[in-house]
């Protein structure tokens, strides 16, 4: 077998996804690679439009038909290539080995079908059981996600549940067939803060119980800090940094990651007492348009450290610290300056 690392459960290699629009080809994901171990939680962060959701969608091949397509790269689940899998095989994999929960709990459930049916149909489809057993499983799943009075509530419709409850139902659907990988695309973004915490706790608890690996996609570094073991930072469709979570928070190497960290709101008690509240730090500039080829480093126009080389030549990934990957020409220098 392998050296000391076990074979990864999911392996994404050099993934390219393009959207074919009237404004030209949009390179939404431009050469992203990562791997996921069994039972691990991998966080993917980045701002809106950086390609994190598209990356997730392409694992399940759920990109909008006729618009977006995987043009290059490979996605392997337990060594099995998914990008070239037949439609029928792909369908029997979705919701079974790999399942997904989405950002919008209010609209992600079908309003005209009972939540019980929406859980049970997944079970019926993949676990080869009858309707009755599937419905029993649905009740069991509702209990697992801590919906009170589950026996009665299986027959309710989504509009009878609150946003947080609906996200619990989504989790119940996603976990109903004991998937190996759960892709959570901004699962708590649309919820208010107390509910966010509950949902994250629930996901972590169930992950322990079922040993599911999670890909947690978010723009919220707080969510990453609470859930992930390893973090991947994306910018303009590319991976710019990857590190274990503690390492990333202690020593962000990419200027973009540093910008993200600085942009987090913090409570500065001392300043607060003196009656001045520090302004949130923003990252200057805008995300580049992805429908034109990007020369050099995509972050260069917004980066304070950018040199002529950054603007003309795209940096490859380097590993200045073991286990910590970064795509930046100036990374060592920045790290040296930041932590000298």
């Amino acid at each position, binding site marked *: 077998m392998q050296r000391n690392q076990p074979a990864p459960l999911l392996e994404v290699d050099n993934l390219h996804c393009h959207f074919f629009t009237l404004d030209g080809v949009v390179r939404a994901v431009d050469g992203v690679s990562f791997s996921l171990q069994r039972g691990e939680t991998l966080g993917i962060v980045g701002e809106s439009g950086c390609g994190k959701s598209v990356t997730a969608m392409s694992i399940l091949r759920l990109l909008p038909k006729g618009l977006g397509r995987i043009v290059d790269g490979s996605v392997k689940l337990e060594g099995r290539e998914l990008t070239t899998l037949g439609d029928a095989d792909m369908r029997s994999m*979705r*919701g079974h080995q790999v*399942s997904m929960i989405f950002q919008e709990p209010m609209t*992600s459930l079908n*309003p*005209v079908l009972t939540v019980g049916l929406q859980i049970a*149909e997944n079970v019926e*489809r993949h676990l080869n059981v009858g309707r009755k057993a599937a419905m029993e499983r649905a009740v069991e799943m509702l209990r697992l996600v801590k919906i009170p009075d589950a026996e009665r509530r299986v027959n309710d*419709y989504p509009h009878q549940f609150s946003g947080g409850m609906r996200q619990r139902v989504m989790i119940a*659907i996603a976990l109903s067939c004991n998937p190996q990988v759960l892709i959570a695309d901004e699962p708590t973004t649309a919820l208010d803060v107390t509910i966010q915490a509950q949902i994250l706790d629930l996901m972590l608890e169930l992950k322990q119980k079922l040993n599911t690996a999670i890909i947690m996609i978010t723009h919220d570094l707080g969510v990453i800090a609470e859930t992930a073991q390893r973090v991947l930072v994306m910018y303009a469709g590319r991976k710019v940094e990857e590190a274990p979570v503690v390492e990333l928070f202690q020593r962000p190497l990419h200027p973009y990651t540093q910008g993200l960290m600085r942009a987090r709101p913090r409570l500065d008690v001392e300043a607060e007492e003196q009656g001045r509240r520090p302004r949130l730090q923003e990252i200057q500039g805008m995300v580049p348009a992805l429908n034109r080829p990007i020369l050099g480093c995509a972050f260069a126009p917004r980066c304070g450290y950018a040199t002529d080389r950054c603007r003309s030549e795209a940096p490859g990934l380097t590993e200045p610290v073991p286990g910590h990957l970064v795509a930046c020409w100036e990374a060592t220098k920045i790290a040296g300056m930041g932590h000298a």
Partner: protein
Amino acid sequence: MIAYITRRLLATVPVMLTVGVFVFFLLRIAPGDPAAIIAGDNATSQDIENIRGKLGLDRPMIEQFVHWSWRLLQGDLGISIFSNLPVTTLIAQRMEPTIALTISTLMVAVALAIPMGVLAAWKARTLVDRLVMGFAVLGFAVPVFVAGYVLIYIFSVQLGWLPVQGYRPIGEGFWPFAQSLVLPSIALGTTYCALIARITRASMLEVLSQDYIRTAESKGLAQRRVLLLHALKNAAVPIVTVIGIGIALLISGVVITETVFNIPGLGRLTVDAVLKRDYPIVQGLILVFAFAKVLVNLTVDVSYAFLDPRIRY
């Protein structure tokens, strides 16, 4: 739900009353005099006056109305001016062909339109979609009588597969009955089918872009189940609405279709009665059509509650 249906049924009474008032007075305001038609071309004005007196048409309009309404409440639609038969009998005699034609048209149109619309939405912007929408435009553009004569020419005159005209009651056997309905149903149903197909496509297209369809796809469900359960059930409310509205369209189409195919139904009865100013028949027919429409609307409204759990009465 039962209470709702009862309430709606009771509400039909004022509706029918309003329809009755309008029908009665509009007919009498419209030009044309049944007495003159009965009397014929050579009659003197005295003859016409006599006939008017006999029919009660010389009375004040209000008096005629009160008289008619009173009889109506007892279930009596009056006597035909020309045939001297009770209007209820005449309508009952002509009911079967029209009901048969309407139902078969409805079934054929819905059975074709919904799959076509779903297919067009699923395969949006492809050749299949363009073909279906092309048919829909054509179906809209070709009038019932043109479609009728073209169908008769091809399938009855040239190929000899189906009867040219006429209607065979179901009592004479199902096969001849069905054969006599094929061409009229197609002729009458084309516009209707085009309408439903278009709405189905539009409604499905909107639903297919919803988040819950992506969820259904992420469960790896069969394409059929995603389209026909997850999407179509959500798209159903506008479709059912248009099916209901289309029944009004069918009722007017029935008049032309029955004339083209020489079917002795309510449509033909309507045309004949209007041309002769046979007031009692026209009044009776319009009330029957209005009642049918009210029932259809009620059925449509009740079906919403079954299709969408968020709708409750």
